[in-house]
Protein backbone atom coordinates (compact mmCIF):
# COMPACT_ATOMS: atom_id res chain seq x y z
CA UNK A 1 0.00 0.00 0.00
CA UNK A 2 1.01 3.63 -0.19
CA UNK A 3 2.13 3.46 3.42
CA UNK A 4 5.05 1.26 2.53
CA UNK A 5 8.21 3.00 1.50
CA UNK A 6 9.10 0.48 -1.18
CA UNK A 7 10.69 2.45 -3.99
CA UNK A 8 11.46 5.46 -1.81
CA UNK A 9 14.80 6.56 -0.42
CA UNK A 10 14.99 6.00 3.33
CA UNK A 11 18.25 6.73 5.17
CA UNK A 12 20.03 7.30 1.89
CA UNK A 13 19.05 3.96 0.31
CA UNK A 14 16.15 2.88 -1.84
CA UNK A 15 13.78 0.50 -0.07
CA UNK A 16 13.74 -2.65 -2.21
CA UNK A 17 10.86 -5.10 -2.62
CA UNK A 18 11.22 -8.64 -1.26
CA UNK A 19 11.41 -9.88 -4.83
CA UNK A 20 11.62 -7.97 -8.10
CA UNK A 21 9.90 -9.11 -11.26
CA UNK A 22 11.89 -8.26 -14.34
CA UNK A 23 11.88 -8.82 -18.07
CA UNK A 24 14.69 -9.36 -20.56
CA UNK A 25 14.11 -8.55 -24.23
CA UNK A 26 16.52 -10.13 -26.71
CA UNK A 27 16.85 -7.49 -29.41
CA UNK A 28 18.43 -10.04 -31.74
CA UNK A 29 15.05 -11.69 -32.09
CA UNK A 30 12.59 -8.81 -32.31
CA UNK A 31 11.02 -8.44 -35.75
CA UNK A 32 8.78 -5.53 -34.86
CA UNK A 33 5.68 -7.63 -35.51
CA UNK A 34 3.78 -5.65 -32.87
CA UNK A 35 1.95 -8.71 -31.54
CA UNK A 36 2.96 -7.61 -28.04
CA UNK A 37 1.56 -4.11 -28.46
CA UNK A 38 -1.75 -5.45 -29.70
CA UNK A 39 -1.88 -8.13 -27.00
CA UNK A 40 -1.67 -5.43 -24.36
CA UNK A 41 -4.06 -3.11 -26.17
CA UNK A 42 -6.81 -5.65 -26.62
CA UNK A 43 -6.49 -6.75 -23.00
CA UNK A 44 -6.13 -3.49 -21.11
CA UNK A 45 -6.61 -0.30 -23.08
CA UNK A 46 -9.91 -0.70 -24.92
CA UNK A 47 -12.03 1.50 -22.67
CA UNK A 48 -13.17 5.06 -23.28
CA UNK A 49 -10.35 7.48 -22.64
CA UNK A 50 -7.72 4.85 -23.43
CA UNK A 51 -7.95 4.90 -27.21
CA UNK A 52 -4.56 6.58 -27.64
CA UNK A 53 -2.76 4.44 -25.06
CA UNK A 54 -0.06 1.97 -25.95
CA UNK A 55 1.32 0.66 -22.71
CA UNK A 56 3.59 -1.66 -24.72
CA UNK A 57 5.32 -0.18 -27.75
CA UNK A 58 7.86 -1.31 -30.31
CA UNK A 59 9.76 1.41 -32.11
CA UNK A 60 12.39 1.40 -34.79
CA UNK A 61 15.72 2.62 -33.48
CA UNK A 62 17.42 4.88 -34.31
CA UNK A 63 14.13 6.73 -34.32
CA UNK A 64 12.13 9.28 -32.41
CA UNK A 65 10.15 6.71 -30.51
CA UNK A 66 6.91 7.09 -28.63
CA UNK A 67 6.19 9.73 -27.55
CA UNK A 68 8.09 11.61 -30.24
CA UNK A 69 11.59 12.51 -28.96
CA UNK A 70 10.88 11.14 -25.48
CA UNK A 71 14.58 10.72 -24.83
CA UNK A 72 14.98 14.51 -24.75
CA UNK A 73 12.08 15.19 -22.39
CA UNK A 74 14.02 15.02 -19.14
CA UNK A 75 12.83 13.39 -15.96
CA UNK A 76 14.56 10.76 -13.85
CA UNK A 77 17.32 11.63 -11.43
CA UNK A 78 20.67 13.33 -11.69
CA UNK A 79 23.19 13.15 -8.86
CA UNK A 80 20.48 11.67 -6.70
CA UNK A 81 18.10 14.63 -7.15
CA UNK A 82 14.96 14.71 -9.29
CA UNK A 83 15.45 16.18 -12.73
CA UNK A 84 12.66 18.32 -14.17
CA UNK A 85 10.94 16.77 -17.15
CA UNK A 86 8.28 17.97 -19.52
CA UNK A 87 4.88 16.65 -20.41
CA UNK A 88 4.53 15.30 -23.91
CA UNK A 89 1.63 16.71 -25.90
CA UNK A 90 -1.16 14.47 -27.12
CA UNK A 91 0.22 14.92 -30.62
CA UNK A 92 3.67 13.76 -29.54
CA UNK A 93 2.20 10.59 -28.09
CA UNK A 94 0.22 10.06 -31.26
CA UNK A 95 -3.53 10.50 -31.13
CA UNK A 96 -6.06 7.76 -31.72
CA UNK A 97 -7.28 8.09 -35.25
CA UNK A 98 -10.86 7.55 -36.35
CA UNK A 99 -11.17 5.45 -39.47
CA UNK A 100 -13.87 5.20 -42.10
CA UNK A 101 -14.59 1.52 -41.51
CA UNK A 102 -18.26 1.73 -42.41
CA UNK A 103 -17.48 3.42 -45.68
CA UNK A 104 -14.83 0.90 -46.65
CA UNK A 105 -16.59 -2.27 -45.49
CA UNK A 106 -20.22 -1.46 -46.19
CA UNK A 107 -20.22 1.61 -48.41
CA UNK A 108 -20.32 -0.41 -51.61
CA UNK A 109 -17.53 1.67 -53.11
CA UNK A 110 -15.18 -1.22 -53.76
CA UNK A 111 -11.71 0.09 -54.44
CA UNK A 112 -13.07 3.60 -54.51
CA UNK A 113 -12.83 3.90 -50.77
CA UNK A 114 -9.57 3.54 -48.88
CA UNK A 115 -9.12 3.16 -45.14
CA UNK A 116 -7.67 6.40 -43.86
CA UNK A 117 -7.72 8.55 -40.73
CA UNK A 118 -10.59 11.00 -40.71
CA UNK A 119 -10.39 14.68 -39.96
CA UNK A 120 -7.20 16.70 -40.09
CA UNK A 121 -4.39 14.67 -41.69
CA UNK A 122 -2.18 13.45 -38.87
CA UNK A 123 1.39 14.68 -38.60
CA UNK A 124 2.57 12.04 -36.17
CA UNK A 125 1.59 8.62 -34.88
CA UNK A 126 3.00 6.17 -32.37
CA UNK A 127 5.02 4.38 -35.06
CA UNK A 128 5.40 7.10 -37.63
CA UNK A 129 9.06 6.49 -38.40
CA UNK A 130 8.86 2.71 -38.46
CA UNK A 131 11.56 1.04 -40.53
CA UNK A 132 13.28 4.29 -41.49
CA UNK A 133 16.36 3.72 -39.34
CA UNK A 134 19.62 5.36 -40.14
CA UNK A 135 22.85 5.06 -42.10
CA UNK A 136 23.54 4.97 -45.83
CA UNK A 137 23.21 2.06 -48.22
CA UNK A 138 24.73 -0.53 -48.09
CA UNK A 139 25.38 0.11 -44.41
CA UNK A 140 21.95 1.29 -43.32
CA UNK A 141 20.77 -0.10 -40.05
CA UNK A 142 17.97 -0.26 -37.56
CA UNK A 143 16.58 -2.60 -34.95
CA UNK A 144 13.36 -2.75 -32.98
CA UNK A 145 13.09 -1.62 -29.39
CA UNK A 146 10.14 -3.00 -27.43
CA UNK A 147 9.32 -0.94 -24.34
CA UNK A 148 6.97 -1.21 -21.42
CA UNK A 149 6.92 0.52 -18.06
CA UNK A 150 10.18 -0.51 -16.45
CA UNK A 151 8.73 -0.97 -12.96
CA UNK A 152 11.84 0.76 -11.72
CA UNK A 153 13.45 0.07 -8.39
CA UNK A 154 13.59 3.81 -7.67
CA UNK A 155 10.64 5.03 -9.71
CA UNK A 156 10.76 8.76 -10.48
CA UNK A 157 6.98 8.69 -10.94
CA UNK A 158 6.32 7.26 -7.47
CA UNK A 159 8.44 9.87 -5.78
CA UNK A 160 7.01 12.74 -7.82
CA UNK A 161 3.38 12.22 -6.87
CA UNK A 162 2.44 14.62 -4.08
CA UNK A 163 -0.51 12.40 -3.15
CA UNK A 164 1.42 9.13 -2.96
CA UNK A 165 -0.97 7.74 -5.55
CA UNK A 166 1.75 5.50 -7.01
CA UNK A 167 3.13 2.58 -5.06
CA UNK A 168 5.55 -0.29 -5.57
CA UNK A 169 4.45 -3.73 -4.37
CA UNK A 170 6.65 -5.25 -1.72
CA UNK A 171 6.03 -8.80 -2.90
CA UNK A 172 7.15 -8.42 -6.51
CA UNK A 173 8.20 -4.84 -7.23
CA UNK A 174 5.36 -4.08 -9.63
CA UNK A 175 4.71 -0.31 -9.74
CA UNK A 176 1.05 0.69 -9.84
CA UNK A 177 -1.03 3.85 -9.97
CA UNK A 178 -3.87 3.76 -7.45
CA UNK A 179 -6.72 5.01 -9.61
CA UNK A 180 -8.79 5.95 -6.55
CA UNK A 181 -6.07 8.28 -5.30
CA UNK A 182 -4.88 9.74 -8.60
CA UNK A 183 -6.22 13.21 -9.36
CA UNK A 184 -4.54 13.61 -12.73
CA UNK A 185 -1.88 16.08 -11.63
CA UNK A 186 0.55 14.45 -14.07
CA UNK A 187 3.76 15.19 -12.18
CA UNK A 188 4.49 11.50 -12.66
CA UNK A 189 4.30 11.96 -16.41
CA UNK A 190 6.83 14.78 -16.22
CA UNK A 191 9.10 12.83 -13.92
CA UNK A 192 9.18 9.51 -15.79
CA UNK A 193 12.31 9.54 -17.94
CA UNK A 194 10.82 6.85 -20.20
CA UNK A 195 7.53 8.64 -20.73
CA UNK A 196 5.52 5.47 -20.26
CA UNK A 197 2.59 6.96 -18.35
CA UNK A 198 -0.48 7.97 -20.30
CA UNK A 199 -3.28 10.38 -19.38
CA UNK A 200 -6.90 9.30 -19.54
CA UNK A 201 -8.88 12.42 -20.47
CA UNK A 202 -12.21 10.83 -19.66
CA UNK A 203 -11.30 9.77 -16.13
CA UNK A 204 -8.59 12.46 -15.71
CA UNK A 205 -6.14 9.98 -14.22
CA UNK A 206 -2.76 8.62 -15.24
CA UNK A 207 -2.54 5.03 -16.44
CA UNK A 208 0.29 2.72 -17.45
CA UNK A 209 1.50 -0.83 -17.79
CA UNK A 210 0.51 -2.91 -14.77
CA UNK A 211 2.85 -5.83 -15.53
CA UNK A 212 -0.37 -7.81 -15.97
CA UNK A 213 -0.44 -8.24 -12.21
CA UNK A 214 -3.76 -10.13 -12.21
CA UNK A 215 -2.14 -12.65 -14.55
CA UNK A 216 1.22 -13.00 -12.81
CA UNK A 217 -0.57 -13.52 -9.50
CA UNK A 218 -2.11 -16.63 -11.05
CA UNK A 219 1.10 -17.86 -12.65
CA UNK A 220 0.27 -16.53 -16.12
CA UNK A 221 2.88 -14.55 -18.04
CA UNK A 222 2.10 -10.94 -18.96
CA UNK A 223 0.17 -10.78 -22.24
CA UNK A 224 2.94 -9.05 -24.18
CA UNK A 225 5.40 -11.76 -23.18
CA UNK A 226 3.08 -14.70 -23.67
CA UNK A 227 1.90 -13.54 -27.10
CA UNK A 228 5.35 -12.78 -28.47
CA UNK A 229 5.96 -15.26 -31.29
CA UNK A 230 9.66 -14.42 -31.29
CA UNK A 231 10.27 -15.90 -27.86
CA UNK A 232 12.27 -12.86 -26.92
CA UNK A 233 10.51 -11.60 -23.79
CA UNK A 234 11.81 -13.38 -20.72
CA UNK A 235 9.95 -12.91 -17.44
CA UNK A 236 11.08 -13.86 -13.98
CA UNK A 237 12.44 -12.74 -10.65
CA UNK A 238 15.70 -10.87 -10.81
CA UNK A 239 17.31 -12.75 -7.94
CA UNK A 240 16.10 -16.23 -8.79
CA UNK A 241 19.39 -17.89 -9.60
CA UNK A 242 17.69 -20.77 -11.38
CA UNK A 243 15.73 -18.52 -13.72
CA UNK A 244 16.74 -17.03 -17.07
CA UNK A 245 16.53 -13.40 -15.88
CA UNK A 246 19.25 -13.81 -13.27
CA UNK A 247 21.44 -15.69 -15.71
CA UNK A 248 21.14 -13.09 -18.45
CA UNK A 249 21.36 -10.00 -16.22
CA UNK A 250 23.55 -10.94 -13.29
CA UNK A 251 25.52 -14.01 -14.31
CA UNK A 252 26.42 -13.51 -17.97
CA UNK A 253 25.67 -9.77 -17.93
CA UNK A 254 24.44 -9.78 -21.52
CA UNK A 255 21.16 -8.06 -20.65
CA UNK A 256 21.48 -4.35 -19.91
CA UNK A 257 19.18 -1.56 -18.68
CA UNK A 258 18.00 1.17 -21.03
CA UNK A 259 19.28 4.67 -20.21
CA UNK A 260 20.56 3.63 -16.80
CA UNK A 261 21.98 7.14 -16.44
CA UNK A 262 18.41 8.35 -15.71
CA UNK A 263 18.92 6.90 -12.26
CA UNK A 264 15.69 4.95 -11.73
CA UNK A 265 17.16 1.40 -11.92
CA UNK A 266 14.73 0.03 -14.52
CA UNK A 267 13.82 -3.66 -14.36
CA UNK A 268 13.48 -4.30 -18.07
CA UNK A 269 16.79 -5.37 -19.60
CA UNK A 270 17.94 -5.68 -23.19
CA UNK A 271 20.26 -8.10 -24.95
CA UNK A 272 21.95 -5.82 -27.51
CA UNK A 273 21.54 -6.51 -31.22
CA UNK A 274 24.42 -7.90 -33.21
CA UNK A 275 24.63 -6.67 -36.76
CA UNK A 276 26.51 -7.54 -39.97
CA UNK A 277 29.85 -5.91 -40.59
CA UNK A 278 30.13 -2.70 -42.59
CA UNK A 279 31.11 -2.84 -46.21
CA UNK A 280 33.10 -0.12 -47.94
CA UNK A 281 32.77 1.17 -51.50
CA UNK A 282 35.15 -1.47 -52.79
CA UNK A 283 33.20 -4.28 -51.22
CA UNK A 284 35.66 -4.85 -48.38
CA UNK A 285 34.06 -6.09 -45.21
CA UNK A 286 35.33 -4.54 -42.00
CA UNK A 287 34.58 -7.02 -39.22
CA UNK A 288 35.64 -4.52 -36.61
CA UNK A 289 32.79 -2.17 -37.52
CA UNK A 290 29.26 -3.52 -37.06
CA UNK A 291 26.56 -1.77 -39.06
CA UNK A 292 24.84 -0.69 -35.87
CA UNK A 293 27.47 1.72 -34.52
CA UNK A 294 28.75 0.74 -31.10
CA UNK A 295 28.57 4.37 -30.01
CA UNK A 296 24.83 4.37 -30.62
CA UNK A 297 24.32 1.20 -28.59
CA UNK A 298 26.48 2.64 -25.81
CA UNK A 299 24.25 5.71 -25.70
CA UNK A 300 21.26 3.46 -25.04
CA UNK A 301 22.64 0.61 -22.96
CA UNK A 302 25.86 1.96 -21.48
CA UNK A 303 29.49 1.02 -22.01
CA UNK A 304 28.87 -2.54 -20.82
CA UNK A 305 27.33 -3.15 -24.22
CA UNK A 306 30.78 -3.81 -25.69
CA UNK A 307 31.33 -6.71 -23.29
CA UNK A 308 27.82 -8.03 -23.82
CA UNK A 309 28.29 -8.18 -27.60
CA UNK A 310 31.67 -9.83 -27.22
CA UNK A 311 30.15 -12.43 -24.90
CA UNK A 312 27.42 -13.17 -27.43
CA UNK A 313 29.92 -13.53 -30.24
CA UNK A 314 32.18 -15.76 -28.18
CA UNK A 315 29.33 -18.07 -27.21
CA UNK A 316 28.10 -18.23 -30.81
CA UNK A 317 31.62 -19.19 -31.89
CA UNK A 318 31.64 -21.90 -29.23
CA UNK A 319 28.38 -23.32 -30.50
CA UNK A 320 29.70 -23.23 -34.06
CA UNK A 321 32.63 -25.35 -32.94
CA UNK A 322 30.15 -27.88 -31.60
CA UNK A 323 30.65 -27.01 -27.93
CA UNK A 324 27.79 -26.48 -25.51
CA UNK A 325 26.80 -22.90 -24.83
CA UNK A 326 24.51 -22.49 -21.87
CA UNK A 327 24.04 -18.84 -22.77
CA UNK A 328 22.81 -19.64 -26.28
CA UNK A 329 20.61 -22.44 -24.99
CA UNK A 330 19.03 -19.90 -22.63
CA UNK A 331 18.53 -17.30 -25.33
CA UNK A 332 17.19 -19.66 -27.98
CA UNK A 333 14.26 -20.97 -25.85
CA UNK A 334 13.89 -24.44 -27.35
CA UNK A 335 10.97 -25.25 -25.11
CA UNK A 336 8.13 -22.77 -24.65
CA UNK A 337 6.92 -21.60 -22.16
CA UNK A 338 9.10 -23.34 -19.59
CA UNK A 339 12.40 -21.91 -20.72
CA UNK A 340 11.26 -18.32 -21.15
CA UNK A 341 9.05 -17.67 -18.11
CA UNK A 342 9.37 -20.79 -15.98
CA UNK A 343 7.29 -19.37 -13.10
CA UNK A 344 4.47 -18.15 -15.34
CA UNK A 345 3.56 -21.02 -17.62
CA UNK A 346 -0.16 -21.27 -16.89
CA UNK A 347 -2.50 -20.91 -19.86
CA UNK A 348 -4.96 -18.10 -19.09
CA UNK A 349 -7.68 -19.88 -21.02
CA UNK A 350 -7.70 -22.64 -18.42
CA UNK A 351 -8.37 -20.30 -15.49
CA UNK A 352 -11.42 -18.51 -14.13
CA UNK A 353 -11.25 -14.72 -14.26
CA UNK A 354 -13.40 -12.06 -12.62
CA UNK A 355 -13.56 -8.29 -12.82
CA UNK A 356 -12.46 -8.03 -9.21
CA UNK A 357 -9.09 -9.47 -10.20
CA UNK A 358 -8.30 -6.06 -11.61
CA UNK A 359 -10.30 -3.67 -9.45
CA UNK A 360 -9.33 -4.68 -5.94
CA UNK A 361 -6.45 -2.81 -4.32
CA UNK A 362 -3.41 -4.79 -5.31
Amino acid at each position, binding site marked *: MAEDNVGRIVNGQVVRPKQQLAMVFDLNKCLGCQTCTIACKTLWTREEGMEHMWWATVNTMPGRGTPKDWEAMGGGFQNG*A*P*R*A*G*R*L*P*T*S*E*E*FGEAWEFNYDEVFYGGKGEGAALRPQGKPPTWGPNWDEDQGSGDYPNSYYFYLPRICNHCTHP*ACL*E*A*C*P*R*RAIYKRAEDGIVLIDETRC*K*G*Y*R*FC*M*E*ACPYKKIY*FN*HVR*TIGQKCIFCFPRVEKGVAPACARQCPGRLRFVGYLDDEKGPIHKLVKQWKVALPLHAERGTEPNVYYVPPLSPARVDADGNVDESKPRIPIEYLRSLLGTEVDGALEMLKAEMAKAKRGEKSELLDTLIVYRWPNQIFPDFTKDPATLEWSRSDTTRKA
Partner: protein
Amino acid sequence: MLVKKVSFARDTLLDPGAAPWKQAAMEIVALKGTPLALQPSPYIKAAWKGREIGKIKSVRVQALHNGEEIFFHLEWADATADAKIGNDNAFPDGAALLFPMSGDAPLQTMGSKTQPVNAWQWRADFGEQGKNNVAEGLGTTRVTAVSHITCRGSWRSGAWLLVIARPLAVPDQATEAVQFRPAAATKIALAIWEGSNGERAGVKAFSQAWRVLQLQA
Protein backbone atom coordinates in the same frame (compact mmCIF):
# COMPACT_ATOMS: atom_id res chain seq x y z
CA MET B 1 -16.28 38.97 5.53
CA LEU B 2 -19.95 39.49 6.29
CA VAL B 3 -22.39 37.20 4.53
CA LYS B 4 -25.58 39.24 4.27
CA LYS B 5 -28.92 37.51 4.25
CA VAL B 6 -30.99 38.26 1.14
CA SER B 7 -34.21 36.90 -0.24
CA PHE B 8 -33.43 36.25 -3.86
CA ALA B 9 -34.26 33.06 -5.69
CA ARG B 10 -31.63 30.38 -6.02
CA ASP B 11 -31.37 30.71 -9.79
CA THR B 12 -30.79 34.44 -9.49
CA LEU B 13 -28.04 34.08 -6.96
CA LEU B 14 -26.42 31.30 -9.00
CA ASP B 15 -26.01 33.67 -11.94
CA PRO B 16 -22.63 35.40 -11.69
CA GLY B 17 -23.95 38.41 -13.61
CA ALA B 18 -27.23 38.86 -11.70
CA ALA B 19 -28.31 42.09 -9.97
CA PRO B 20 -27.70 41.04 -6.33
CA TRP B 21 -24.01 40.62 -7.13
CA LYS B 22 -23.76 44.13 -8.52
CA GLN B 23 -24.87 45.50 -5.16
CA ALA B 24 -23.33 43.14 -2.65
CA ALA B 25 -20.33 44.21 -0.61
CA MET B 26 -17.06 43.10 -2.10
CA GLU B 27 -13.65 42.33 -0.72
CA ILE B 28 -10.46 42.17 -2.72
CA VAL B 29 -8.41 39.27 -1.45
CA ALA B 30 -4.70 39.33 -2.23
CA LEU B 31 -3.18 36.02 -3.30
CA LYS B 32 0.35 34.71 -3.26
CA GLY B 33 1.90 31.57 -4.65
CA THR B 34 2.29 28.60 -2.32
CA PRO B 35 5.85 28.32 -0.98
CA LEU B 36 8.12 26.00 -2.97
CA ALA B 37 9.61 24.56 0.20
CA LEU B 38 6.24 23.16 1.26
CA GLN B 39 5.48 21.32 -1.97
CA PRO B 40 4.99 17.69 -0.95
CA SER B 41 7.33 16.04 -3.42
CA PRO B 42 10.98 16.61 -4.25
CA TYR B 43 10.10 16.44 -7.95
CA ILE B 44 7.76 19.42 -7.72
CA LYS B 45 10.40 21.41 -5.86
CA ALA B 46 12.93 20.66 -8.60
CA ALA B 47 10.55 21.30 -11.49
CA TRP B 48 9.14 24.60 -10.17
CA LYS B 49 12.39 26.12 -8.98
CA GLY B 50 12.72 29.56 -10.52
CA ARG B 51 9.21 29.46 -11.95
CA GLU B 52 6.36 31.69 -10.86
CA ILE B 53 3.88 29.84 -8.68
CA GLY B 54 0.48 31.49 -8.41
CA LYS B 55 -0.03 33.71 -11.42
CA ILE B 56 -3.33 35.15 -10.14
CA LYS B 57 -2.58 37.93 -7.69
CA SER B 58 -6.00 38.86 -6.39
CA VAL B 59 -9.63 37.82 -6.44
CA ARG B 60 -12.79 39.82 -5.74
CA VAL B 61 -15.06 37.98 -3.34
CA GLN B 62 -18.68 38.51 -2.40
CA ALA B 63 -20.87 36.27 -0.27
CA LEU B 64 -24.63 36.11 0.33
CA HIS B 65 -27.02 33.62 1.85
CA ASN B 66 -30.77 33.24 1.64
CA GLY B 67 -31.35 31.26 4.82
CA GLU B 68 -31.09 27.97 2.92
CA GLU B 69 -27.99 28.18 0.77
CA ILE B 70 -24.79 30.16 0.86
CA PHE B 71 -23.41 31.70 -2.34
CA PHE B 72 -19.87 32.88 -2.97
CA HIS B 73 -19.15 35.06 -6.00
CA LEU B 74 -15.58 35.19 -7.24
CA GLU B 75 -14.12 37.35 -9.98
CA TRP B 76 -10.52 37.41 -11.13
CA ALA B 77 -8.64 38.65 -14.15
CA ASP B 78 -7.41 35.91 -16.44
CA ALA B 79 -6.26 36.61 -19.97
CA THR B 80 -6.83 33.01 -21.09
CA ALA B 81 -9.89 30.86 -20.48
CA ASP B 82 -8.39 27.42 -19.87
CA ALA B 83 -11.78 25.78 -19.81
CA LYS B 84 -10.82 22.19 -20.46
CA ILE B 85 -7.83 19.91 -20.52
CA GLY B 86 -7.78 19.07 -24.24
CA ASN B 87 -4.12 18.14 -24.39
CA ASP B 88 -1.87 15.91 -22.31
CA ASN B 89 0.16 18.93 -21.27
CA ALA B 90 -2.71 21.33 -20.62
CA PHE B 91 -4.40 22.19 -17.34
CA PRO B 92 -7.74 23.91 -16.70
CA ASP B 93 -8.34 26.98 -14.54
CA GLY B 94 -9.66 26.31 -11.06
CA ALA B 95 -10.71 27.91 -7.82
CA ALA B 96 -11.44 26.64 -4.35
CA LEU B 97 -12.78 27.79 -1.03
CA LEU B 98 -11.30 26.38 2.17
CA PHE B 99 -12.93 26.16 5.58
CA PRO B 100 -11.78 24.59 8.83
CA MET B 101 -14.00 21.57 9.54
CA SER B 102 -14.58 22.86 13.05
CA GLY B 103 -13.36 26.12 14.42
CA ASP B 104 -9.76 26.32 13.36
CA ALA B 105 -7.10 24.53 11.35
CA PRO B 106 -3.57 25.25 10.14
CA LEU B 107 -3.94 26.90 6.74
CA GLN B 108 -0.39 26.52 5.40
CA THR B 109 -0.52 22.72 5.68
CA MET B 110 -4.09 22.23 4.42
CA GLY B 111 -5.21 21.16 7.85
CA SER B 112 -3.87 18.43 10.09
CA LYS B 113 -5.04 15.05 11.37
CA THR B 114 -6.71 16.66 14.39
CA GLN B 115 -7.85 19.79 12.53
CA PRO B 116 -9.03 18.82 9.05
CA VAL B 117 -10.19 21.30 6.41
CA ASN B 118 -13.00 21.21 3.89
CA ALA B 119 -12.38 22.45 0.36
CA TRP B 120 -15.09 23.32 -2.17
CA GLN B 121 -13.47 22.93 -5.54
CA TRP B 122 -14.40 24.28 -8.95
CA ARG B 123 -12.51 23.58 -12.11
CA ALA B 124 -13.35 24.92 -15.52
CA ASP B 125 -13.92 21.40 -16.88
CA PHE B 126 -16.14 20.19 -14.01
CA GLY B 127 -19.41 21.59 -15.31
CA GLU B 128 -21.97 22.46 -12.61
CA GLN B 129 -20.95 19.90 -10.04
CA GLY B 130 -18.32 21.23 -7.69
CA LYS B 131 -16.22 18.74 -5.75
CA ASN B 132 -16.13 18.41 -1.99
CA ASN B 133 -12.73 17.59 -0.50
CA VAL B 134 -11.46 16.85 2.97
CA ALA B 135 -7.78 17.31 3.81
CA GLU B 136 -5.68 16.55 6.88
CA GLY B 137 -2.37 17.87 5.68
CA LEU B 138 -0.45 18.45 2.48
CA GLY B 139 -1.03 15.82 -0.18
CA THR B 140 -3.98 14.19 1.62
CA THR B 141 -7.02 15.72 -0.07
CA ARG B 142 -9.78 13.18 -0.50
CA VAL B 143 -12.69 13.83 -2.82
CA THR B 144 -15.88 12.72 -1.14
CA ALA B 145 -18.40 10.63 -3.04
CA VAL B 146 -21.17 13.09 -2.22
CA SER B 147 -21.11 16.78 -3.10
CA HIS B 148 -23.89 19.34 -2.72
CA ILE B 149 -21.78 22.09 -4.24
CA THR B 150 -23.14 23.85 -7.32
CA CYS B 151 -20.93 26.03 -9.50
CA ARG B 152 -21.64 28.40 -12.34
CA GLY B 153 -18.59 29.84 -14.01
CA SER B 154 -18.27 31.99 -17.08
CA TRP B 155 -15.34 33.72 -18.66
CA ARG B 156 -15.61 36.92 -20.62
CA SER B 157 -13.44 39.88 -21.51
CA GLY B 158 -10.43 38.60 -19.67
CA ALA B 159 -12.09 37.64 -16.40
CA TRP B 160 -13.67 34.61 -14.76
CA LEU B 161 -16.95 35.12 -12.95
CA LEU B 162 -17.86 32.25 -10.70
CA VAL B 163 -20.56 31.41 -8.20
CA ILE B 164 -19.98 28.53 -5.79
CA ALA B 165 -23.04 27.59 -3.78
CA ARG B 166 -24.13 24.97 -1.28
CA PRO B 167 -26.96 24.43 1.21
CA LEU B 168 -26.01 25.92 4.56
CA ALA B 169 -26.30 22.58 6.30
CA VAL B 170 -25.62 19.20 4.74
CA PRO B 171 -26.64 16.66 7.38
CA ASP B 172 -25.57 13.69 5.28
CA GLN B 173 -22.01 15.01 5.31
CA ALA B 174 -21.62 15.77 8.99
CA THR B 175 -18.07 14.43 9.15
CA GLU B 176 -16.85 15.50 5.75
CA ALA B 177 -18.19 18.99 5.11
CA VAL B 178 -18.42 22.20 7.07
CA GLN B 179 -21.90 23.12 8.32
CA PHE B 180 -23.12 26.72 8.21
CA ARG B 181 -25.77 28.41 10.39
CA PRO B 182 -27.14 31.94 10.18
CA ALA B 183 -25.46 34.23 12.75
CA ALA B 184 -22.51 31.84 13.09
CA ALA B 185 -18.94 32.68 12.21
CA THR B 186 -16.18 30.57 10.75
CA LYS B 187 -13.08 31.12 8.64
CA ILE B 188 -12.46 31.10 4.91
CA ALA B 189 -9.46 31.02 2.60
CA LEU B 190 -9.28 30.94 -1.19
CA ALA B 191 -7.09 29.48 -3.90
CA ILE B 192 -6.94 30.04 -7.66
CA TRP B 193 -5.13 27.85 -10.20
CA GLU B 194 -4.02 29.39 -13.48
CA GLY B 195 -4.24 26.55 -15.98
CA SER B 196 -2.07 28.17 -18.64
CA ASN B 197 0.78 28.25 -16.10
CA GLY B 198 0.47 24.51 -15.50
CA GLU B 199 -0.91 25.09 -12.01
CA ARG B 200 -2.55 22.18 -10.25
CA ALA B 201 -2.35 20.33 -6.93
CA GLY B 202 -0.43 22.46 -4.41
CA VAL B 203 0.97 24.71 -7.15
CA LYS B 204 -1.49 27.60 -6.89
CA ALA B 205 -2.14 31.09 -5.62
CA PHE B 206 -3.81 31.27 -2.21
CA SER B 207 -4.89 33.76 0.39
CA GLN B 208 -2.17 33.65 3.00
CA ALA B 209 -4.32 33.92 6.08
CA TRP B 210 -7.77 32.89 7.19
CA ARG B 211 -10.46 35.55 7.01
CA VAL B 212 -13.36 35.57 9.39
CA LEU B 213 -16.61 34.62 7.71
CA GLN B 214 -19.63 35.95 9.59
CA LEU B 215 -23.12 34.98 8.49
CA GLN B 216 -25.87 37.47 9.11
CA ALA B 217 -28.77 36.17 11.15
